[in-house]
Each structure stands twice: as structure tokens, then as C-alpha cells.
């Protein structure tokens, strides 16, 4: 493929897809080990009411207010989940289920009650995003990467997703030890003076930030898949958390690249006419990787499940 075609049309969606996948997979490792993986699903649902409220407040479809609305909704949801879990003594999964379904339903109601029918807020966009449309028209080839004017024309999602990935990675690197410790043995971590409640909340907020940024660019399907599939597949490749994180990054990147290419060219290879949704294909590839890891990964057998009492 030549640069003059690849750079403007495929480079930016590919990079955004990779950044989004990795940004979700990184906190996903801890969420899966803490049996909180559902939180990714929850966050990507509660984003809808946040976006609707932001639209009602500002009256325009524009990125920043919607990002803020989504982030606000995610934080409200996280706090509600914690509150219901603690006050209602309900298991975390059920608390999440209650919160995200009712908030999503509230979002749909708001959407119906308000006059948003004439603007482009629809379910398909929420699910699949529009990765393919995030192209870089100012680019003419690889040389454009060094051209300041062309760089200004980059889709805003690219720097935003890159910054999100960086923030999530820095958070995990900085708090690596307490995160690992409190995920493995929360009681012991507390005796060392680690504020485990606060750290758990910070992890969920990091996941929420990744989810909201990724949602904006690539839709919720990728978010849900990337929180769970690469970390779960990575767990079956190794028995060390450090290596698991590395494998999850490899799997997330591979899913993004393979999914994007397959979505664009797969149908043609099989005699079809049109390309399929890149987001959908990326999520599918990550599922296939998980299935392969579950079938052939070297560390599939589990022996140390917690005993009762």
C-alpha cells in the first residue's frame, strides 16, 4: 500500500483504534482480576444519559460538552454503584446491573422526551462509533507527519485518545505496587497503610476515562470487548501479572490492526462489495483471540480458586 493513500485514509483510524484498545485493556487487567469486569459494560451504557444531558444543556452536538457529560455520568454511576453495594449490601455485579440499566433507560427516556429527533444521536453511532470516518484529509503521504500545517488537520480524536492512553498508562505505572497488592490481598494491603478504597475508586475512574474517550471515537462495542478480552486472553498466556499486562497490550494492538484490515478488505477477499464496521470487526477479532487463548494458552488450568470459609 502506498503512503499517499494509506496515510490520509487508514493511518489515523488505525492509530485511534490501537490507542483506544490499549487504553481500555490496561485497566481491564485489574478489573478482570478483581471480578469487576462488568464495570466497563456499565460505564459504556451510562454514557448515553450523560451525552443527552450535555446536549440538552448546550443545545449543540459538540465533542467537549458531550465528553464532560459522559464523564460526569460515569462518575455518578460509579458512586451510585459503590453506594448501593455498601448501603444495600448487594453484590457488586447486581449493583452495577441496577445502576447501568436504569441510567441507560433514563437516557433513552430523556432522548424521547426532548426534541433531539432532528439531530444525529442514534443507537448505531453509540454502539459502533465511526472509526472509518476519522480520516486525515490534509495528509498527502508519509511526509505529512513532519508537516506542521497538515498535522493541524489531524482528527481531534487522535491526540485525545493518545493523551488518554498516556494518562492511564502513567496511573498504572505509578501505582503499580499498591494496585497489584490490593488486587491480590486487600486486607494485607490495608495493614500496610494502603488506602485500598480510594485506590479502587481511582482505578474505576481511570477505566471510566478510557471508556468515555474511546466511546467518543470508536463506540461502546470496542470498550466492552477491550476491557475483558485481551486481559482474559493474556491471563492464559502467563502466570505473572507483569507479563499478563504485556500480553494484553499485544492482543489489544493485534485486535485493532487485524480488525481494521479485515473490516476494510475482508469482504472484498470473499467477493463481497462493501466494507463492514471496523469497530465491530475489532471486537470480534479480540473475541477470537480470547477463544484461541482459552483453547491453546499455556496457563489455562486453574488450581487456586478460593476455598470457602
Amino acid at each position, binding site marked *: 500500500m502506498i503512503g499517499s493513500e494509506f496515510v490520509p485514509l487508514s493511518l489515523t483510524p488505525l492509530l485511534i483504534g490501537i490507542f483506544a484498545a490499549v487504553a481500555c485493556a490496561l485497566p481491564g487487567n485489574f478489573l478482570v482480576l478483581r471480578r469487576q469486569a462488568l464495570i466497563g459494560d456499565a460505564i459504556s451504557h451510562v454514557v448515553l444519559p450523560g451525552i443527552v444531558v450535555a446536549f440538552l444543556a448546550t443545545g449543540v452536538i459538540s465533542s467537549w460538552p458531550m465528553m464532560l457529560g459522559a464523564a460526569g455520568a460515569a462518575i455518578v454511576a460509579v458512586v451510585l454503584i459503590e453506594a448501593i453495594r455498601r448501603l444495600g449490601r448487594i453484590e457488586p455485579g447486581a449493583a452495577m446491573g441496577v445502576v447501568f440499566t436504569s441510567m441507560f433507560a433514563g437516557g433513552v427516556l430523556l432522548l424521547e422526551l426532548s426534541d433531539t429527533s432532528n439531530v444525529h444521536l442514534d443507537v448505531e453511532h453509540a454502539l459502533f462509533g465511526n472509526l472509518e470516518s476519522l480520516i486525515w484529509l490534509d495528509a498527502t503521504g508519509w511526509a505529512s507527519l513532519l508537516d506542521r500545517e497538515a498535522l493541524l488537520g489531524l482528527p481531534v480524536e487522535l491526540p485525545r485518545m493518545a493523551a488518554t492512553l498516556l494518562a492511564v498508562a502513567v496511573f498504572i505505572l505509578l501505582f503499580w*505496587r499498591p494496585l497489584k497488592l490490593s488486587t491480590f490481598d486487600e486486607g494485607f494491603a490495608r495493614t500496610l497503610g494502603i488506602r485500598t478504597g480510594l485506590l479502587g475508586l481511582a482505578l474505576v475512574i481511570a477505566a471510566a476515562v478510557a471508556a468515555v474517550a474511546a466511546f467518543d471515537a470508536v463506540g461502546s462495542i470496542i470498550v466492552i470487548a477491550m476491557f475483558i478480552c485481551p486481559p482474559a486472553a493474556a491471563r492464559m498466556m502467563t502466570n*505473572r501479572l507483569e507479563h499478563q499486562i504485556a500480553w494484553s497490550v499485544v492482543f489489544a494492538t493485534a485486535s485493532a490492526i487485524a480488525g481494521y484490515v479485515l473490516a476494510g478488505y475482508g469482504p472484498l477477499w470473499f467477493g463481497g462489495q462493501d466494507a463492514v464496521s471496523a469497530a465491530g470487526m475489532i471486537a470480534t477479532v479480540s473475541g477470537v483471540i480470547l477463544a484461541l487463548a482459552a483453547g491453546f494458552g499455556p496457563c489455562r488450568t486453574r488450581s487456586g480458586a478460593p476455598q470457602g470459609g
Partner: protein
Amino acid sequence: MTVELAASHGRRPEVVVPENSPLTIRGLTVSYGHKPAVFSVDMTVMPGAMTAIIGPNGAGKSTLLKAALGIAKPLSGQVRVFGKPLDRQRARVAYVPQRASVDWDFPTRVIDVVVMGLYRQLGLLGRLRASHRARAMECLDRVGMTDFADRQIGQLSGGQQQRVFLARALAQDADLYLLDEPFAGVDAATEKAIIGVLKSLRAEGRTVVAVHHDLATVRDYFDNVFLINAAKVAEGPVDTTFTAENLQAAYGGRLATAQVDQLAQVLA
């Protein structure tokens, strides 16, 4: 109501606190839901000795330990570690949780778990040096587990897992060791290894407090006992406190016949 009662209970004339008692608890009440799990408990742990916390299932033994460590939140009461609040003494306290309280499928190796005991030395970003690794291996050696350093923790037997937890506590190099059922479900060799280590800790002048469930071994293993059934029943040296009357008071009708027979032999 409960809180009030506990608070007034805690205000009674103070028992004399020995200087530098490693762990002093006054008027401690902890509650899950409405029923207090630990009710208005006073405890004074003797330095350089081994103390067993004994009581029937659900008597609040683990909860007492967790409250002393700041893991469980008390409704009322005071905890002093070497005469100061726990927050300023964390480096002097080591903890061995119940083995079943964690997921042993967690992707990590034996040596990594022991290194967790060095967290307060390493801090957030301190580099793990060869000296830290050597220290962790030394602790594994003390529990006879050096050969397993690179194993994934899920591949260990129950007894081996318990030894790894003990090694992690040894890495903490503390003055007060709090253990939750360290002998639960372990093989005989492990039990021997663990008690050997605990006795060597005592010989070094450190203090050991363990939740213990096997009444038959109390006399052999421990210097002091603390009997609890939500409220404190008795506290003192094994010779004078580990008596049939106190056990009856702690266990009530719940002492199984087999245990009674076993005890009759021990106490005879």
C-alpha cells in the same frame, strides 16, 4: 443503643496497662449489621510472648484481629500498638491473613508474594534491588520454601501457601506478628515448620498473637490465651486461664463432644 452501651462500658476504670504492651485494646466493639461481632473487648498482649485467641466459630476472633489492624472498622474502642495509634506503628506490625481470604489463582510467583512484605521499605517506586531479593529468599528459607520461589502460587498445596504467607510476614521484619488461623488445614510438616518459626520469633523478643482453633495444641504452642465469645471471657497465662470452666464459659453448649473428650485428656 449498642453504641451507647459499648461506650459506657468502655469508660469503666482502666486496667493497668503494662509499659510498652505491643497491643492494647480498650472497649472495642465491632458490628456487621446489627449484631455486634466483638463486644466491648479489652485486651492486653504481653510482650515477647505467644498468645492464642480462642473461641467458638463466629465468636469474633478474626474480627478482633482485623479491628486491631484497622481492616475492620470498630463502632467504638481504642487500639494502641506499642502505646501509640496504629497509623504511626504500621511498620512494626506484620499480618498473616487467613489463607482462604485470597484468590490463589492470581498471576504471581511465590517470590513476588514475599516481596510484597517489603512494600513499606520499597514504597511506591523504589527499585527492587538484589538485597531485597536476597532478603525475600532468606524469609522463604526460614519456612523451607526456597525451591518454590519461581512457582506460580496456585500450584502450591494449602500448607505451602500458608508458609508463603508466613514468609511474607517475616519480610515485614515486625515486632508484633498477628496471624489468623495459621494452622488451619495445613499438613503436619507445615504445622511443625510454622510453630518452629513462631517460636524463633519469640526467642528474638518479638510478640506473636494467633487466632487458633485447635484446643489440643494450645498448651504446647502458646504462653497466654485470650478467650472470646463476642465479649471477652478470660485472658491470661495458659496455666491459670486455659481451664475447663473458662472454656465452658467461652464455648457454652457449643463445644463438640469430641473436643470435650480431647480436652479432658489435655487438662487432666
